[in-house]
């Protein structure tokens, strides 16, 4: 069998990943048409390409169905509570940088820190009869972060897209989302909390600690690692 390398199947993340590997003498390409999710690897023996959605790569690594995979730190930490035991970071790829942050409306001049947020949430609940709602798709990371900080009286509401718009639509009072430049936040009249950085993420190559490695796969892995780190 061959060493399985999981790569995001579309978009900028895929293109940049292809570039990163080609800079190390490994050519990855999609075979056939653009619509076909099959790929080929040149420049190294015993490695096969598996094209997957970036969101599925953590699960596949944790199940040992792929040996190596490229995905963001944010998705690994959100989806794999025991990620240290399941995967090993091989290389940070230097692109796809994004921060998971907490953001509130700019006109909340009274809220700059988690301490302010906690007090504002308590007052909000007393006045409006429900908890202060935070729209996010990163439930586990946000909840762990707020619990550790001792923030209470909030509720998470699920938002799988256009999260910044939830405040305007009054389906949430604030957001926890990924941002790289902060432009979307500013355009939606939101600002960062000064101590609300939950996680700094970037595209990263991970190795599965639980996958089984045959002799041939172990050799291919060594060659791959030598090429990448050398």
């Amino acid at each position: 069998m061959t060493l399985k390398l999981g790569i995001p199947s579309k978009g900028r993340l895929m293109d940049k990943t292809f570039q990163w590997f080609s800079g190390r003498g490994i050519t990855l390409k999609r075979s056939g048409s653009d619509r076909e999710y099959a790929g080929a690897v040149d420049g190294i023996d015993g490695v096969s390409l598996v094209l997957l959605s970036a969101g599925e790569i953590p699960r596949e690594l944790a199940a040992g169905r792929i040996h190596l995979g490229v995905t963001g730190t944010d998705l690994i930490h959100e989806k794999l509570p025991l990620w240290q035991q399941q995967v090993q970071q091989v290389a940070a790829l230097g692109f796809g940088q994004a921060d998971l942050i907490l953001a509130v409306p700019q006109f909340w001049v009274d809220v700059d820190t988690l301490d302010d947020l906690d007090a504002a949430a308590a007052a909000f609940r007393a006045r409006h009869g429900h908890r202060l709602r935070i729209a996010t798709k990163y439930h586990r990371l946000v909840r762990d972060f707020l619990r550790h900080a001792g923030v209470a009286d909030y509720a998470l509401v699920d938002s799988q897209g256009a999260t910044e718009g939830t405040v305007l639509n009054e389906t949430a009072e604030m957001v926890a989302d990924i941002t790289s430049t902060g432009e979307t936040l500013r355009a939606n009249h939101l600002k960062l909390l000064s101590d609300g950085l939950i996680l700094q993420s970037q595209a990263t190559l991970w190795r599965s600690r639980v996958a089984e490695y045959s002799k041939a796969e172990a050799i291919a892995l060594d060659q791959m690692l030598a090429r990448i780190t050398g």
Partner: protein
Amino acid sequence: MTPSRSATLARAATLRARFEDAGGQVVETPVLQPAGTLLDLYGEDIRARAYVTSDALRGEQMLRPDFTVPVVQMHMEHGADPARYTYAGEVFRRQEQDPDRANEYIQVGYELFDRSGSAAADAEVFALIAETLKGLPLHAATGDIGILMAAVQGLNTSDARKSALMRHLWHPRRFRALLERFSGRASPPPSRQALLAQDDPLHGHAPLIGKRRLSDVEARIDVLRADAMAPPITTQELTALEALLKVRETLPHALERLRDVAVDLPQISPALDRLAARIKALSARGIDTDALDFEASYGRTSMEYYDGFVFGFYAQARPDLPPIATGGRYDALTRRLGKGAEIPAVGGVLRPDLMLLLEEGRS
């Protein structure tokens, strides 16, 4: 080796029968609980500890994370007091950090609703659990959240500060940070100082979006301004509160220490009288109180609904195991669930599977 399910169930039945002999009326509660009540009580954190499921008709439901809440609800709807209840069944706890912790296990419990709210009720529950666990190599820890509550409520400071401290009684880190600030040991963050330095911080503000309105922001600025004017909590009170939190002794010595603390925090004296009465009631039930440990901070991290006497039994040689039994007084919970009504209540639960595990290890 993990005890088999049938052995655990058999033990659970024996324990429940024993609690029945002690006067407990057997109750059953549904496994699926409406999520709203639990979320309202525990906040978002409960989602990390309980399994949530849903359907289109009833909305979000939780797999019973404990029996206390449904038993309280049942009693407050149609129970007459005093009442004693016992139950045995599965509870479900989501585990995301430690794969060795069970996500489903059997609990056997005993709850006592008694309007006198007496030390005798505390002692009855503790002694019953202690007697049931007799012979196992366990260490008992006790505490009393009511003493800390009384200390905070009697502080010589604003109501806003007191309620902020009360809200975070169960979050020791934030409680600590608030105390540092309210006593003037830590200065407010620069952003707060800058805000309060402005005459009209909302001048030329950004667009008003969301359900938290301008009036909410204005109201909080007023609160912050008032807070900035409030005098700090005195060193004397702060030192006494710190001394209180550090008390960790066997019961009679702990009481002596706390009586010393009460010189500077006289508001805790009624709670200390209740502690003294409890020591007496425990002794009358045959508990060796001279050897029983008391920690003033015990129960502050995980027992959010307890507001008086708290206790736990731990396996001495197995610090990796969760407590074998826990319990305490939860008068405030009955107030929250009772829609205006309330009834003093105290209870405890134990884990038959862990009891079997320890017995096996010993033989």
